[in-house]
């Protein structure tokens, strides 16, 4: 039993790396999609809305299978890790897009009006006035997105990325102890999520306006 710990720790590290990369890609996709949905160009609004409803409307596991197993058929060759990051990142982006858009539109329109009447351009008002306030409101809901995406990394076990869930399954074969193996994986997930949650709460307190 003791012999498996190093492998689980290594796997937990991979789960963390996966989560970080997924979160970064998700934030990029989510930000782009959020601004596209608020654009004055109908094409951008439509494309972003389609992206959000497509990726929120189908299981992430199916998205991963299509990318990893179906990809080669249409000329997309990715290894399991790459497919995992890209698949989960694009999926997380669809959820984050809604969080970011929600944060932006929840800022009182008087703020935009005050900025524009001073002579600021649309993007100057966005950058100086709207986003700094919206970002503060987004910390907690983005924390929820982060919590979800960390747990969603378990899905990439299904395309054989050697992260926590896959590692737990693998050592059941040699130890015959499924209860302990899955419990151990669960505890490690919980530690990752607890620490992340505390980080989000700290950040949320730190950015609040006095």
């Amino acid at each position, binding site marked *: 039993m003791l012999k498996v710990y190093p492998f689980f720790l290594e796997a937990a590290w991979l789960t963390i790396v996966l989560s970080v990369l997924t979160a970064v890609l998700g934030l990029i996709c989510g930000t782009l999609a959020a601004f596209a949905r608020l654009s004055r160009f109908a094409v951008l609004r439509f494309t972003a809305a389609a992206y959000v409803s497509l990726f929120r409307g189908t299981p992430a596991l199916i998205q991963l299978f299509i990318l990893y197993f179906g990809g080669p058929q249409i000329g997309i060759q990715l290894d399991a890790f790459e497919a995992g990051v890209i698949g989960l990142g694009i999926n997380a982006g669809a959820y984050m897009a809604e969080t970011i858009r929600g944060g932006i539109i929840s800022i*009182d329109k*008087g*703020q935009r*009006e*005050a*900025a*524009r*009447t*001073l*002579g*600021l*351009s*649309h993007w*100057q008002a966005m950058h*100086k*006035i709207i986003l*700094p*306030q919206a970002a*503060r409101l987004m910390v907690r809901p983005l924390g929820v997105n982060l919590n979800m995406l960390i747990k969603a990394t378990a899905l990439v076990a299904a395309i054989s990325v050697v992260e926590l869930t896959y590692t737990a399954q693998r050592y059941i074969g040699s130890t015959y102890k499924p209860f302990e193996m899955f419990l151990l994986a669960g505890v490690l997930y919980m530690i990752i999520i607890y620490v992340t949650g505390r980080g989000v709460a700290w950040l949320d307190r730190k950015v609040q*306006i*006095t």
Partner: protein
Amino acid sequence: MTDEKSFVEIRHAQKAFGSLEVLKDISLSVAQGQIVGIIGSSGSGKSTLLRAINDLDPLTGGEVWLDGVQVNQKLPHRQYEKHINQMRQQVGMVFQHFNLFPHMTARENVKMAPMMLKGLSQEEANALAEEQLDHVGLLERIDYYPSQLSGGQKQRVAIARALAMKPKLMLFDEATSALDPELVEEVNQVMRKLAEQHMTMIIVTHEMDFAASVCDRVLFMDQGVVVEEGPPAILFTNPTQPRTREFLRKHLEGAK
């Protein structure tokens, strides 16, 4: 072109939301240094007219001119943006709900736009913020956040923020309507001071006494038209139109 006397000129302003006409062919001319009050019940179109002057609520018909330049020009998007940002720098606006930037101190609220748009250095902008906040009597609150200020103080910061851009014209959209009664006077005093400095002002207000004491002319609006206008001494004491009389009578009752 507008004639020389006319600093702000509104020609045949129309505004419709679908079939609802909010402004019906309003024309108005304001000379430099003049102070014009607009009164009327809510829904009369007075705020819409004020907000049309800096194109915050674009008109559906008619023209707005400021100092010989048309504000609401029909231009391609990019050119329009450039033009309107230029125009708005010359027009200060004060809102009913202050709309201070809550993530910035009073100082930062005041110096943000001059630094961004006029390229002032930190030192120049700080000096400007101190000067403007001193004018409204809030120098000692310069590093407070809006949440730490009273309503009257917030509105005075908002006025200082608008004045820091050195506007040619100030628009007040019910600047004291959201204030507790005891805080109204401190804001009125700041506005009186501006009047003494001959700032051109257009003031939408519910306060008849204040309008009577500072305005050169008062307009009474109802249902999207200017029913009557004139010097406050005449409009308030001897209105010719039945609708004006009715409004003033109701307003006096309400004030009691």
